[in-house]
């Protein structure tokens, strides 16, 4: 027991000379050289305050105003929020966002993780495939969107062209013009751009598995499937959780792909909360209303981020 305690404490990182800085600041008991810490933090704090904190607080302030940008701002109290939650278009945006976010995240991570697991069994042979899949992540969403517009176009699109060529004329469809298929068309395009990141994080997690564990499993007679199922899958979960986190946030704030492929249509079938926010603020100039929807989107992102942030914080401690 004593040995265990000693072992545990010996693994701890040596305390930083600035640890407990926040507590000392709050209690007014700063040490003589704590100013060095503040000096080092100052540039970051300055840019954070100007670039993030101020816009955030101002958006929060504007969300309580009735303001078009040219008119004199009028206090609106909670009216923007009350109106927002009663707005059928916002309800539609919430529904679309839920389908969009979960589908994009689930499908991207499923594809990325699957390829990572396969790559884990033959890292060298699958390297070209990993590069090709990850390359799509490096292409701008705008360029990808334009490419997918060409694929999903009703008359001259590649997809309908291929369907016609293989005798499946009846399967052709104006994919982006049909409210029932438009969202899935955009999801397909978005997943194509996003699957590279889960592949990278999951493959990195698999690469971090000690070779000795896999070799021991082989020595014990484990098949490739058993190694995949009982060693690689559980031990790559940290990579999967990071991929889920990043893909979830990316899809919540996705805009370019939707703007290029459908502009939120047809009949609002692809209007996410992020797109709704853009419409209200930039197109309809309802600054207060748009700001209220921005705050709601921000809260959604915070709710999604919180579990991972808390997990990372507890691991850091």
């Amino acid at each position: 027991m004593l040995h265990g305690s000693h072992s545990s404490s010996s693994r701890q990182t040596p305390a930083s000379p600035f640890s407990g800085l926040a507590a000392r600041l709050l209690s007014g008991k700063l040490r003589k050289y704590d100013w060095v810490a503040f000096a080092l933090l100052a540039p970051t704090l300055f840019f954070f305050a100007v670039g993030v904190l101020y816009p955030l607080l101002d958006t929060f302030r504007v969300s309580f105003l009735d303001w078009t940008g040219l008119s004199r701002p009028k206090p609106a109290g909670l009216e923007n929020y009350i109106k927002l939650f009663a707005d059928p278009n916002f309800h539609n945006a919430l529904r679309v966002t839920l389908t969009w976010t979960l589908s994009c995240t689930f499908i991207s991570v499923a594809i990325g993780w699957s390829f990572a697991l396969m790559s884990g069994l033959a890292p060298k042979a699958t390297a070209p495939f990993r590069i090709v899949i990850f390359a799509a992540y490096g292409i701008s969403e705008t360029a990808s969107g334009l490419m997918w517009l060409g694929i999903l176009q009703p008359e001259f699109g590649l997809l309908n062209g291929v369907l016609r060529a293989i005798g499946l004329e009846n399967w052709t469809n104006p994919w982006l013009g049909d409210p029932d298929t438009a969202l899935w068309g955009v999801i397909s395009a978005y997943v194509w751009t996003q699957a590279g990141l889960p592949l990278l994080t999951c493959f990195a997690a698999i690469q971090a598995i000690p070779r000795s564990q896999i070799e021991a499993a082989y020595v014990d007679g484990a098949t490739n499937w058993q190694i995949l199922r009982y060693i690689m899958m559980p031990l790559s979960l940290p990579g999967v959780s990071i991929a889920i986190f990043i893909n979830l946030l990316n899809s919540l704030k996705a805009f370019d792909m939707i703007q290029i492929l459908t502009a939120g249509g047809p009949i609002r079938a692809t209007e996410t909360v992020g797109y709704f926010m853009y419409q209200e603020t930039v197109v309809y100039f309802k600054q207060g209303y748009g700001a209220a929807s921005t705050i709601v989107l921000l809260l959604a992102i915070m709710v999604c981020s919180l579990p991972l942030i808390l997990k990372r914080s507890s691991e850091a401690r």
Partner: protein
Amino acid sequence: MKFMVGTSALALVASAMFGGAAQAADQELVIFNWLGGSEREMIVKLEEGFEAKYPEIDVKDINPAAGGDDARGGIRTALLAGEKFDILINTWPSLEKEMVDNGLLRPLDGAWEQYGWSSALSDSWKNLSNHDGKTFGAYFIAGNRSGLWHRTDVMKSAGIESVPTEWDGFLASFGSLSESGKLPVFIGARSWAQTEWFENALLKTAGTDFAGKLARHEAKWTDEPVKATFRNMRDMLQANCCADAETMLSTHWTDAADAVLKDGKAGYMLIGTWVNSRASNEYALTPGDDYDFVQFPTIDPAHADAMSVDGKNLVVMENAANPEAAEKFIDYVLSPEGSEIIAQYGQATPSAHSDLSGYDPVVAKYAALLQSSDVFFVLDDLLPAELSGEFRVSLQKFLKDPSDATIDAITQALEAKANEVY
């Protein structure tokens, strides 16, 4: 000697500097020019012509970063940031109204009288910038939004000698076009181009007075003329005018232009006059010979000359540092010299001082119509932006299901939105 040469040189330099300064402009006119491409070049050319005529006035042209499809964001940002300018080029009546309501624009009635602009612009053009009995802008560029564009060879191959100008004849021509293997009408309803059809059908069904009332919400969206317009559009859909709704909803106007004017796969499209430069420059077609337009067919003869137009006007800011120079600039733009510069760039002006002989036959045709028709500014630009969004989506719903139930539902939704935003 050296001293004398040096002194003379200094005197020459001083003379060049200070002598020049004595002749330089002593007034400045600042123009907020957010336009791009050839339209921007045209404004710069007008500014140069103005400076040559009024050497005491120096024109400063400022161009915001946010131009492109919708420069309203850039204009708002500039105003919010306290940018000072004398003249703003505007193309959105709803933005103009908002600026008037917030005291940002200066009325031009005095200048209108002083410079006699009524000789250049008809009352219907003047009225487009009328808010609460005062005039706030002068239109200098105009486009026809009622043109049904078509290829002449497509019409001939379908046996249509002259394109029908009456509604029933127009619907009847769909059969001939279909038999010749063409889609009669291509509507690109992906974003906003479906509104062109409703607006023109409304003007020809109920006239410009009713459309004006609707734009100001003095008439209701649930009123009978609106429903009658939808029923007329339904007649067109039921006459097999178009592709299926899903194809229309995924088609941009540019794709429709390609299908109608470039590839000749479809008969008609309804779009603004900017398609003229696309047809002549990008498709290398000859205006008047290879392609042409007719005005949207007459539905009710009482409204036969109703015409949907778009345009750009010049407005003077309330805090303008030099309003007199701004008014002089407007006068110059409307003058024969200004109109000639505008014509050089292939744009039509509603000014009666323009010489139509300088235009290609297509532009000359609609430029003449601009001066003789009962014009009404494109409805979608008159509506508050939020109502415009609902309007576009409602028309997409109608194209998907043009039943009476849909007409009732969308007119009620539009009326509810109008009640909310006016």
